[in-house]
């Protein structure tokens, strides 16, 4: 009965076809553009590593690792800085592990989900975003001045521990959370108390995850420079430290002083580059260990 009037065109086939070629071309072009931009970061990384390597060639040798600091670039070495960095790790490792695991256990196993829980959690998230230099000022005020520790290894170590604490806490929380509930229930079923369950079931199971977090935190700590500068480690020829109450220098500090002084003595830039290589090698080894632990010991349930 109804007469079909003019058939309304929802799609104009001609226009679509005309535009199709450009749309597809644009899509292809943009794909390569995005790929190039992804590669840009990698190219810069390669240039950076190559550049540091070139600058360090001829300077990085056994004598450089064994010698003490010196104003004479030919005789300068970084044994003191290496010892200082190792000391820092000896303090930061146990302290963050102890505090980090404790905090994570409290949040995951004991605290009721409520105000206190979310307060501590928010607080940790906020701490993770505080610039490292502000932690340096905290260390300067509290550890160096109020506690009277001076610019010692222990003051630097405690400051660094607070700085990287959020990393360990978050990693430990994730590790503890990934322990399946049935393991806990089995332990309770055997008559174990809560603490026994944590000690014998939860912690051993989550240890690989926690250790990975601790190693990553340590590798952040030994690369950090700003808090140490603020704590007031002088640019002097510091002797190799003997105890944790001695003043010290660390690898990144040495890079810093040699870089800014390279304006005065050209060779200092080479010393800085050689120190960077040592620092990067240490970081690479630590990260490899973290990856190995994660892949090898982490069980999946």
């Amino acid at each position, binding site marked *: 009965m109804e007469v079909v009037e003019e058939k309304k065109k929802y799609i104009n086939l001609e226009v679509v076809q005309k535009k199709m070629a450009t749309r597809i071309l644009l899509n292809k072009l943009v*794909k390569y553009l995005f790929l190039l931009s992804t590669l840009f970061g990698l190219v810069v990384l390669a240039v950076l590593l190559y550049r540091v390597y070139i600058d360090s060639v001829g300077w990085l040798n056994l004598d450089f690792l064994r010698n003490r600091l010196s104003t004479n670039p030919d005789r300068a070495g970084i044994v003191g800085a290496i010892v200082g960095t190792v000391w820092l790790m000896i303090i930061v490792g146990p302290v963050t592990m102890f505090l980090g695991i404790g905090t994570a256990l409290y949040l995951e196993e004991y605290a009721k989900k409520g105000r206190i829980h979310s307060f501590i959690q928010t*607080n940790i998230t906020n701490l993770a975003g505080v610039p490292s230099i502000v932690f340096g*000022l905290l260390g300067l005020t509290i550890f160096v001045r109020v506690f009277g520790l001076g610019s010692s290894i222990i003051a630097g170590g405690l400051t660094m521990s607070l700085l990287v604490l959020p990393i360990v806490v978050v990693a430990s929380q994730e590790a503890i959370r990934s322990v399946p509930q049935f393991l806990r229930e089995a332990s309770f079923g055997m008559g174990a108390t809560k603490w026994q369950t944590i000690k014998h079931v939860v912690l051993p199971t989550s240890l690989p995850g926690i250790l990975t977090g601790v190693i990553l935190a340590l590798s952040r700590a030994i690369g950090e420079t700003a808090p140490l500068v603020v704590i007031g480690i002088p640019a002097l020829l510091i002797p190799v430290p003997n105890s944790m109450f001695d003043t010290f220098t660390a690898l990144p500090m040495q890079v810093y002083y040699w870089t800014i002084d390279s304006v005065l003595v050209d060779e200092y830039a080479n010393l800085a580059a050689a120190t960077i290589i040592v620092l990067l090698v240490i970081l690479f080894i630590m990260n490899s260990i973290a990856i190995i632990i994660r892949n090898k010991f982490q069980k999946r349930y």
Partner: protein
Amino acid sequence: MSKTVNVKELIQQKDRVSKVRAIVEKMIPTVLFLLASISILTTVGIVSTLVYETFLFFKEVSIIQFFTSPELKPLSRVDPKFSILPLLTGTVLTSLVAMFVAIPIGLTTAIFLSEYASEKVRKLLKPLIEVLAGIPTIVYGFFAFTFVTPLLREFVPGLQATNALSPGIVMGIMIIPLVASLSEDAMNSVPNAMREGAMALGATKLEVTLRVVIPAAISGIIASFVLGISRAIGETMIVTIASGSTKNFTFDITQSMQTMTAYIVEVTSGDAAAGTTAYYSLYAVAFTLFIFTLLMNMFARYISRKYREVY
């Protein structure tokens, strides 16, 4: 040959052990709570030292002068002048340069990894990009100072040996992985059904990305930008080394200028004794820095939570 077993004694022994156990069981939560409160104490420590010393500073220097005067001469013996304006311009300019690098490259990297790359390519490229985030900032500082600045001076006439441009660019490169991985996470959480719907209507991948994926993931993407800016503002070593210590109130990025973080490094590196006005000025600057970064981090979390589309 049997040993006599005193049942009574055994029961007593068991009682003793379980009593100790009960005490341990009760103490553990308290001990763990104390460990957890260290992180709260840290925050309290940071805020209270900053507030207290800043308060002392503003007793000596007027707050209006501090935020409006363009002159900063903290170590002048005759007439020291305190103002945060030159440091603010330094911080804002270097961060702006950094974001000019980090936002386009970080976002396109995220798009490539999440929308275009095959699973194989993604697994290869992503960890490599993350390496950029693991390099210590002091190494970037060295790179900016000894390589990027001399390179830029070939192309940019009038570029000083220390300037805002070179550390800004290097800082941007450092922030690429942050922007890329957070944006990628946001895009990955957009369900495939939406992409497939658009594709079924004949859209190309680019159109799907621009009109479906990005709008759906926009809250996470913007949060990643804000977090990137906050990182740039708080970054210390790159700018300390490569942007110099001239307290210029200028908007010219070829000039040497000091950021808030670099000022803190300069003053703590020995020149100002505790108790002097210059020493207290540290805390006023650090307090400003702390507030800036805290607000940005909270803002980033707020937008990513509030405007997240849940599917």
